[in-house]
């Protein structure tokens, strides 16, 4: 009797947990479909025949690559992708370098106004981009950097997020290791590159990927700086929209191509990217 009761309870507990699991999966499946469908629609539209571009059918048939050919004919997609890669890589490297040096100083030394300076550094994170946009624009104009890739990169070289994250990691860095390196007679500069950086490599890789993806997706600032060309791919996308209506076919084809490098990066370095998001506390 008692045994039968226990089995019943176990069974109902088992069923309850299975139901919860099934329910949880159902919710996740619905959410996944909601997230993936716009991306599916993007590629589906890009692969429709030109006459079917306004079609609402879920399956694009017959398939056609004409929109891709059209996109390459109307815009210099290859140059845009190369330029965007240059911007994303240089921006991420610059932000890592500035962040590393600043974090090393904040974590490794004690100096006057240290906390205040750090707060000011991090405080820049709270200032919306729109506030600094015009002064930056005027400065670029005076430096004659408007309409150049350097103009897109230079004002974004310091990332408060980078400084904040790297400082947190450096604070947890074993002091004994630094002391030992100093006793070996290494300079501060030498310690940074031979002791700190090799140890922080996973963190730097994860943060670098995060910063590169952010720079790759950036639209607002390049739209202000690059007035005489569509040198980066996010601006190239906009060039298929306008007063005369949106050219959805090549627009979707270019958007599909723009997503590919980030998808590839994500697939190859999935663990690092998830790690980067978890470490940064961002979603």
């Amino acid at each position, binding site marked *: 009797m008692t045994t039968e009761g226990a089995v019943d309870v176990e069974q109902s507990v088992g069923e309850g947990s299975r139901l919860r699991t099934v329910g949880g999966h159902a919710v996740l499946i619905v959410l996944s479909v909601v997230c993936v469908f716009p991306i599916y629609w993007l590629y589906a539209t890009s692969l429709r025949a030109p006459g079917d571009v306004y079609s609402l059918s879920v399956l694009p048939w017959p398939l056609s690559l004409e929109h891709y050919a059209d996109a390459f004919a109307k815009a210099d997609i290859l140059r845009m992708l190369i330029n965007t890669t240059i911007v994303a890589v240089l921006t991420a490297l610059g932000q890592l370098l500035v962040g590393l040096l600043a974090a090393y100083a904040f974590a490794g030394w004690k100096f006057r106004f240290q906390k205040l300076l750090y707060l000011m550094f991090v405080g820049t994170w709270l200032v919306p981009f729109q506030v600094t946009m015009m002064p930056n624009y005027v400065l670029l104009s005076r430096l004659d950097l408007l309409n150049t890739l350097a103009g897109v990169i230079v004002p974004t070289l310091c990332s408060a997020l980078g400084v904040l994250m790297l400082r947190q990691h450096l604070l947890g860095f074993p002091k004994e290791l630094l002391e030992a390196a100093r006793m070996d007679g290494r300079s501060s500069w030498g310690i940074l590159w031979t002791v700190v950086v090799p140890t922080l490599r996973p963190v730097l890789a994860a943060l670098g990927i995060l910063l590169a993806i952010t720079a790759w997706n950036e639209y607002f600032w390049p*739209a202000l700086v690059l007035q005489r060309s569509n040198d980066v791919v996010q601006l190239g996308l906009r060039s298929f929209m*306008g007063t005369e*209506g949106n050219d959805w076919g090549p627009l979707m084809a270019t958007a599909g191509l723009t997503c590919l490098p980030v998808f590839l990066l994500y697939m190859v370095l999935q663990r690092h990217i998830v790690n980067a998001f978890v470490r940064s506390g961002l979603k």
Partner: protein
Amino acid sequence: MRRKLLAAVGAALALTTALAGCGLGGETPAAGSNTTTSRIPELKADQQVSIVFESYNFGQAGAWTDTFNELIGKFTAAHPNIKVTPQKPQGNSANPATDTIPSIQAQMAAGNPPDVAQLGFSDLDFTINELKAAPLDDLVGKDEVQKNFDGAKYPFAKTARTLGDWGGKTYGVPFVFSTPVLYYNADLFTKAGLDPAKPPKTWSEVEQAALAIKGKTGKEGVYVDCLTKGSKDWCFQSIARSNGGRVISEDRKALSFADGPTVEAVTAMQKMVKSGAMPNRNQQQGTEGFARGDFGMIVESSALQGTFGKGLKENLKSAAMPAFDGKPVVPTNSGASLFVFAKDPAKQRAAWELIKFLTSEEAYTTIATKIGYLPLRTKLVEDPAGLKPWADKNPLIKPNLEQLDRMEPWVSFPGPSYLQIRDGMMSAVENSVFQGADPQSTLKTAQDAAAKLVPEGGR
């Protein structure tokens, strides 16, 4: 003494704050004062000049950018001493044409505005009175400006010549525009038992045809792309004028979009929504739905003709703007003019040379055949060596060309808050037509609110 000092400091602070609040920076002339400009000398043959030309056409890939680059190439070949740098307006709107004014303002703040810019007619008051575009009559003389309108062989359409004028002077040379056209889907007309050769001529005929299409084909009847904030007010003004109304009084002192005839016109549009002839859709849903074949008719600018043609092909037909029963249609224009912002006389002369070239017979022939824009030198379409072959192949442009004769200008609102006035009016129109709000009280409330934004004494 101390009180005086405090008062002086206070006054200085107030003045500084007020000046900073003007927003455009020190290089922008104060509103209301007219720039005095003297006649500019001709360029010497070896005088090298560089100018910047800003146009929203450079923001759109394909035929637009390519055609304009081709024109700039031809201009440079004819004027080797003038270097033209083309650029699109800066900004991040999906439609670069909406970035034009903020772009000029930002570049003025940086002390570096473009020398020539293509700006919309809705911005005319602001362009002249706030941004201080140079009066072309003063720069090169009235005769020279009129000579350009007359052209080498084909003059500008009479109604188009004065669209860039202000206070008796020409500031902008009208460049490209459309009038409202009724596009319709011949296939849906046939399926609904309507004759595609006899498109509706009045709004009541439009409503009947729309209901027939909806009833017999299950598709939507009509979309009038003139009645939302997103559509701006260029063709809403045509609807108001065609019923005897105006959005602003002729002396530009008082708003009048809540007057009887305009309210009546809005009520007629609302009736089409209530009867089911027109669904509640936004601009994009309307235009793309029509291109997809889901609407029987649409009132639209010819700028979208190419988009419609891709979807509907030979089923796309065009007709004149519908009339209110017993009243003449008053078409208005969309589009833009070319203005000069250069301050240096050599750049001003180079800018004028560029404007002359871009509005020449040669340029209009290129623009019409490659982009499909309406040639403002209308008689070009009768010239077998000009645009006649193109016009014969494109009968859809006919209603647009015919409407030019009785066209009236798209009137811009006055003052620095002109966009707020326009958007307030169009929000009230949208609420009335599509949300079922009472047109009389909704338009009156919007008009009373917007009246506070009209500069005292009008303009």
